[in-house]
């Protein structure tokens, strides 16, 4: 029974298997069929063309220019952890100060003052400034720890995002 012509897929698979001449000879049909031989030749030429370097070129100083960009980037100082912590603490203090300044804390400070201070009336001159401070803070003190927690959470998220960003492409 005569074999059908080789399909494009079969010819490509044949060429992908290192294109040995022995294997070619083994295929009786390919050896005797002019149409398949011509198709094989087309693909052989195509493979040769595909393996040719298309001649894309980068400038000769490419590596140097990349390295110079690298040193430019490195020249920008990254914040050290201690500076980062100092900035976070400053941020918290500023947030607390702003909160104290704008929010009426009087009712809460009155309650705290009554609970914490009556038994310490012995040294009133020492405690008087604290009493006065609490009296001045006429508002809800509960917002203060919330603001501090929010700032700490933002700082932690920032660190996590920074780490993930720099490691996501590692295989």
């Amino acid at each position, binding site marked *: 029974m005569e074999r059908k012509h080789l399909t494009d897929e079969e010819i490509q698979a044949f060429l992908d298997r290192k294109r040995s001449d022995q294997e070619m000879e083994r295929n009786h049909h390919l050896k005797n069929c002019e149409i398949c031989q011509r198709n094989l030749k087309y*693909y052989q030429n195509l493979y040769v063309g595909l393996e040719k370097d298309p001649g894309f*070129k980068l400038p000769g100083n490419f590596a140097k220019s990349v390295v110079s960009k690298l*040193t430019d*980037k490195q020249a920008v100082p990254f914040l050290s952890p201690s500076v980062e912590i100092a900035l976070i603490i400053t941020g918290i203090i500023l947030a607390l100060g702003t909160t104290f300044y704008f929010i009426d804390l009087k009712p809460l400070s009155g309650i705290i003052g009554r609970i914490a201070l009556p038994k310490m009336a012995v040294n009133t001159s020492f405690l008087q400034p604290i009493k006065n401070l609490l009296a001045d803070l006429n508002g809800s003190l509960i917002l203060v720890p919330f603001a501090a927690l929010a700032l700490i959470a933002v700082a932690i998220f920032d660190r996590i995002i920074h780490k993930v960003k720099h490691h996501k492409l*590692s*295989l």
Partner: protein
Amino acid sequence: MRKSATTEPRQLIARIRAGDTHAFQAFIDQYKRLVTHIVFRMISNTADREDLCQDVFLKVYQNLDGFRFESKVSTWIARIAHNLCINYLQKKKVLLYDDRTPESESLEDFSGGHNLPDSFAEERDIASRLQDEIDKLEIRFRTILTLYHLDEMSYAEIAQIMNLPEGTVKSYLYRARKRLKERLMEKYQKEEIWNANI
């Protein structure tokens, strides 16, 4: 000639990690051919190609500490190059699966056709015509052809780089070559292009 030990990827990377910029320069020289193949094949805008190649190596440097040698260095770099090119194309709103030669395209749009003018045939050599036809294929086809034939990567490596199943890579490669063959046969005189030694 004896190959210098410093060109070994592991040693080179160790030196780069230690802050040796000369080692990074050598590293770039070693892998720039691969990066160029991918970027130049995927990106048509000539003005942006060099910048993208630079971005690839800057990204490689940035992520070098995280590289754990679980894949070949070339596969890892090619993956970074491929991802950056995809990001660039998405930003520029380039259709990733756009074939630049639709079936309906008229023959007048080409300088050739079955009756290729002699002068045209003389002007351009066959290899450059093949490159032109490759450039008209879909980006994924162009990339696979380049990685397989030019950079001699395996199906598994290409699958890893392009984040595709191995079977899909095989099928795309077959389709790309078949399409290329058909287009070349369709547009240029058969004898001229196929009997010549490319």
